[in-house]
């Protein structure tokens, strides 16, 4: 186990370096920087901002030196100041983070809580009535564009039925206490729904195929032969094995959720990280764009590492290198 963990951690070092390089390339594609070129793109940036960029990122120095300068600051957790309001980038991220954590945390929790029973029930009887019906619904959800779903839900539940608020994170005259919490949850209902269904469809299909494959395996048949009930054979023997690929992919659900946050937070006007990223792109607020790209990728890498280690802890075959992620 220790050997596997060490090897996996060692492999993460070049990946981390690669992430930094990608973000650095992003900076050099940005209008107003040497790599971007073109008279048109240069004009989009004021002289003052361009001078600030040169100072901040040392853009007049040779490339390796620029990269070293930038990495050095990032390593000291200095993400710089926003071009827009000149506050530290870390402060702006801290303000937006709770909105995105609430949205994505709830979405992930709902997706897993619904996907697992649906996937197991469908996989337990492949080609049964429930499997066919759920497959059709999950397929539709899988192909449904988030922003269209958001607009339809707004039309139905906010405009026509008037059950839920159209957008925002909280009402203008926000009540306090329990009523305030209820108000915030009412504002979360539609955004969480939009962010949940894609992950739900993805995970449920994964669990379903895992369970469907495992139910005819020797160990499930053996469990049945020993007198285990059908329910026990599926949940106690087939399901744990079907869960392994889900654990591996949990880390990679994170970037998908963040992508969804950009769209959902924009449509529902929630001041979270996705909204901050999109606004910063439009405002050419490069320090914020770079910091959010870097942080999201590093957090995903950490989550993937944890998922791989959890998988290795759960499955000896992964530790021994017989099967496993890559």
């Amino acid at each position, binding site marked *: 186990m220790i050997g596997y963990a060490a090897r996996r951690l060692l*492999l993460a070092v*070049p*990946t981390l370096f*690669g*992430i930094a*390089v*990608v973000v650095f390339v*992003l900076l050099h*594609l*940005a*209008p107003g920087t040497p790599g*971007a070129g*073109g008279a*048109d*793109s240069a004009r989009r940036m004021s002289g003052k901002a361009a001078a600030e960029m040169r100072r901040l990122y040392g853009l007049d120095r040779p490339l390796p030196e620029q990269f070293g300068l930038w990495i050095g600051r990032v390593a000291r957790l200095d993400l710089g100041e926003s071009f827009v309001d000149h506050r530290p980038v870390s402060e702006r991220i801290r303000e937006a983070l709770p909105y995105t954590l609430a949205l994505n945390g709830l979405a992930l929790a709902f997706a897993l809580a619904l996907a697992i029973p649906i996937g197991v029930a469908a996989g337990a009887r492949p080609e049964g009535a429930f499997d066919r019906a759920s497959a059709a619904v999950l*397929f*539709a959800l*899988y*192909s*449904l*564009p*988030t*922003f*269209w779903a958001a*607009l*339809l839900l*707004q*039309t139905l539940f906010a*405009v*026509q039925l008037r059950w839920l608020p*159209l957008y925002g994170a909280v009402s203008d005259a926000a009540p306090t206490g329990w009523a305030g919490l209820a108000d915030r949850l009412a504002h979360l209902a539609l955004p969480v729904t939009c962010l949940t269904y894609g992950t739900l469809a993805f995970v449920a299909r994964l669990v379903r195929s895992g369970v469907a494959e495992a139910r005819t395996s020797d160990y499930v048949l053996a469990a049945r032969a020993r007198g285990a009930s059908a329910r026990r054979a599926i949940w106690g023997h087939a399901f744990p094995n079907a869960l392994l690929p889900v654990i591996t992919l949990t880390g*990679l659900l994170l*970037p*998908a959720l*963040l*992508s*969804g946050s*950009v*769209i959902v937070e*924009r*449509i529902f006007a929630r001041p979270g990280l996705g909204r901050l*990223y*999109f606004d910063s*792109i*439009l405002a050419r607020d490069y320090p914020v*764009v770079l910091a*959010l*790209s870097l942080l*999201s*990728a*590093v957090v*995903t*890498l950490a989550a*993937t590492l944890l998922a791989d280690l959890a998988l290795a802890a759960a499955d000896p075959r992964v530790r021994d290198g017989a099967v496993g992620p*890559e």
Partner: protein
Amino acid sequence: MRLFAARLPASARVAGAVVVLLWILAACSPLFAERARAIRLDERLQAPSWTHPFGTDDLGRDLLARVVAATPISLAIGLVAAGVSLGIGFAVGATAGYFGGAVDLMLSRLIEVMLCFPVLFLLLALAAFLPPSPATVIAAIGFTTWAGDARYARAEVLKIRELDYARAARAMGASTPRILARHLLPNALPPLIVSAAFGVGWAILAEAALSFLGVGLPAPAVSWGGILSSAPNWIVEAWWMALFPGLALFLTVAAYNLLAEGLRAVTVEGGRSA
């Protein structure tokens, strides 16, 4: 080829027919171009009726004509962008899978790096930072979504290179390019076609998301995502502005995905006879 189509599940055959119909519609779309552009402020925000089956938008343009006129752009960008993504993904994945060792270790890190970023973060940055054009949108989608294809191609080539015919070709002294082109590529093709079909649906969605967020195709080119981008402003007054362009998008993506699932059932799961 006819036999191949007959082995597809019925759902996939219907989906394939829908895709063909969509491309025929795209070919006929210039007939609607004039009607799609006609601004009639006296007819703005009209609900669906016999004269305007999908209703009219905030400038009084006929929505049905606009949706039809946008078909070729959405379909073509999706197809080309998916092709770029698949091309990069296959090149990287097949190289990693075939050579193994240090090459595989390095390219696998590259794939891992790309998978760590939220796709929309990179897409938005590329689309907003590079000069707006169809080429930018295609490149942005192609360069940000290839990692999934690469992982798939790598696994496929890893599997094939140890099969008897690949070993035999090596034993007979065939050169590496020859083995790759004559033995590995044709045998990796069926799963690649499946990957491509899923990729087209994905790329159409990605383009729509970019255009919806306002960093997609520059005017006057309009895609379904571009039509939808003004719908949030009129969500209270005109539900049809959100419903119909989105429906076209959803049906197209669903048709490509359903076709892909059918192809997968025949080529990948149903043995390697295809």
